[in-house]
């Protein structure tokens, strides 16, 4: 019989297994976030490939109060998240329920539907840029067939945010579908059977049996998707870069422009802190709300 080995590595097993992950988070996420505080108090300029920081928080405050883009960026982001995610939830749920009722070829249909999630967002941006093209894009070719004039999808401030939302819906409906389809397939068969025996129509079964049972999965899908939508950057960067004007400007795009196009690291840090505080307060409020709901 082998004696139980009780070396140092084994006794400390719980610690050294967790430690590397903690180190990664402390060094590469906590520390950089704390760095933002110091950065936001300085103004940076670049000289001969070196950045030179000067202590000047007032300058960054004055950038902040005089920044005309913050408000449209926040408004657009909220509109973007609300409209895109609601559309994705509705279409994704309908697709999940439809596909679960298909009798043959379910696997193939699922594989086809999830294709868009696999495409690099940058490639999605450039693909749709071709499709939205004013002169030769497939969408305007289609519009011409319907007798409509060409639409300036990305160049007209009335359409640019909508065009960006359409791409997002195309990209992410598959994700909602994937989660909800797995949940629908996992529903207990006997419950569905019971509803059928009791004479429920298909619509009634969906409304009173399927949807309530799917609620946890719907909440998870909705939460995940809203978070990702709030952070959207890649596709919009390629499609419109926030334009024309500020008509499709989003928070992430504005951060990118301040940091890396205007090279304004100090003010960028101040903006970043604002965004992080927004996120944290949103989290705290939503926790309060869920806690209150659980009690009430």
């Amino acid at each position, binding site marked *: 019989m082998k004696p139980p080995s009780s070396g140092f590595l084994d006794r400390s097993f719980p610690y050294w297994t*967790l430690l*590397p992950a903690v180190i990664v988070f402390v060094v590469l996420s906590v520390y950089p976030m704390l760095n933002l505080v110091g950065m936001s108090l300085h103004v940076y300029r670049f000289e001969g490939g070196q950045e030179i920081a000067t202590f000047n928080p007032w300058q960054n405050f004055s950038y902040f109060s005089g920044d005309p883009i913050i408000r449209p960026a926040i408004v657009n982001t909220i509109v973007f998240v609300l409209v895109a995610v609601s559309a994705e939830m509705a279409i994704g749920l309908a697709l999940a329920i439809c596909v679960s009722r298909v009798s043959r070829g379910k696997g193939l*249909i699922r594989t086809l539907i999830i294709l868009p999630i*696999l495409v690099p967002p940058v490639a999605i941006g450039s*693909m749709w840029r071709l499709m939205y093209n004013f002169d030769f894009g497939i969408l305007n070719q289609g519009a011409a067939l319907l007798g409509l004039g060409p639409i300036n999808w990305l160049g007209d401030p009335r359409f640019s945010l909508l065009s960006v939302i359409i791409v997002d819906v195309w990209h992410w409906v598959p994700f909602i579908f994937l989660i909800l389809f797995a949940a629908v397939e996992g529903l207990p068969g006997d419950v569905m059977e019971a509803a059928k025996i009791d004479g429920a129509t298909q619509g009634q079964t969906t409304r009173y049996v399927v949807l309530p049972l799917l609620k*946890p999965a719907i909440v998870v899908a909705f939460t995940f998707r809203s978070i990702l939508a709030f952070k959207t950057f890649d596709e919009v960067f390629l499609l419109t870069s926030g334009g024309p004007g500020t008509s499709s400007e989003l928070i992430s795009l504005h951060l990118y422009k301040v940091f*890396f196009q205007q090279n304004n690291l100090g003010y960028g840090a101040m903006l970043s802190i604002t965004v992080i505080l927004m996120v944290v307060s949103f989290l705290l409020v939503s926790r309060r709300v869920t806690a209150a709901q659980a009690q009430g």
Partner: protein
Amino acid sequence: MGHLTPLQRVFLAVALVVIVAPFLWILMNSFKYQIAIYQGSWVFEPTLSNYTDVLFSRRSRFSDNLWNSVVVAVTSTTIVLVLGTLAAYSLNRFPWAPWVSRGLMAWLVVFHMVPVLTLVGPWYLIFRHFGLYDTLTGLVLTHVTLNLPMAIWLMLAFVREVPREMEEAAEIDGCSRIQTFGYVVLPVIVPGLIATGVLSFIFSWNEFAVALNLTSRATATVPVGVAKFAQEYEIQHAQMAAASILATIPAILIMFFGQKFVVRGLTLGSVK
């Protein structure tokens, strides 16, 4: 379950066409000469020149981009798998004080919700300071940080499923903690490792915002290369289409083999 009503049939058919058509249209365009794209023609003389241009022409760095992406995605996925699995196991099986486990989980949520561009600024300064700016090592570190929360969440779901009795039996048989983990737990959670590995690889392969700002010509990854075609003064639509198709192939191949495991992982993760 019942059958599809005619209305549902139409809905499903339209949805499938809308999802698949863009791929076919882009694929078609990637075989056109630029002039045929401008004419919007449906009948054209096909050519491979866009692909050879993207991959082999001297102006394009796309083959370098591909290599960089492979290195970054494989390395960061390996590290994420090791760190994520160990951390998930430790968090689930050992009685950590609540401030450690809850604190870590809360931090993961906050970190996951914050737009990554808030962190690229400080990363840029820190990496310049330590000579990591414009290196693949630096990019790997950021991708590890970004994908580790997802890995810990997914692996927690899989570790939870492993019956404790198995480990207790192994301990009685004289296995050390390390042996128990290696011989008993690890083989059972292989499906979780595959699911996490596939997702982590795809996220790293597709990641753009960090790579755009922390790399330059020699260290750029595929997404940065794709974006280049759309950004130059004269947009090269044909090459853009070919590059988009090339950039998509690896993720589709990997997902083709890993789909089963990823679906199971997402279900476990979202139900529990």
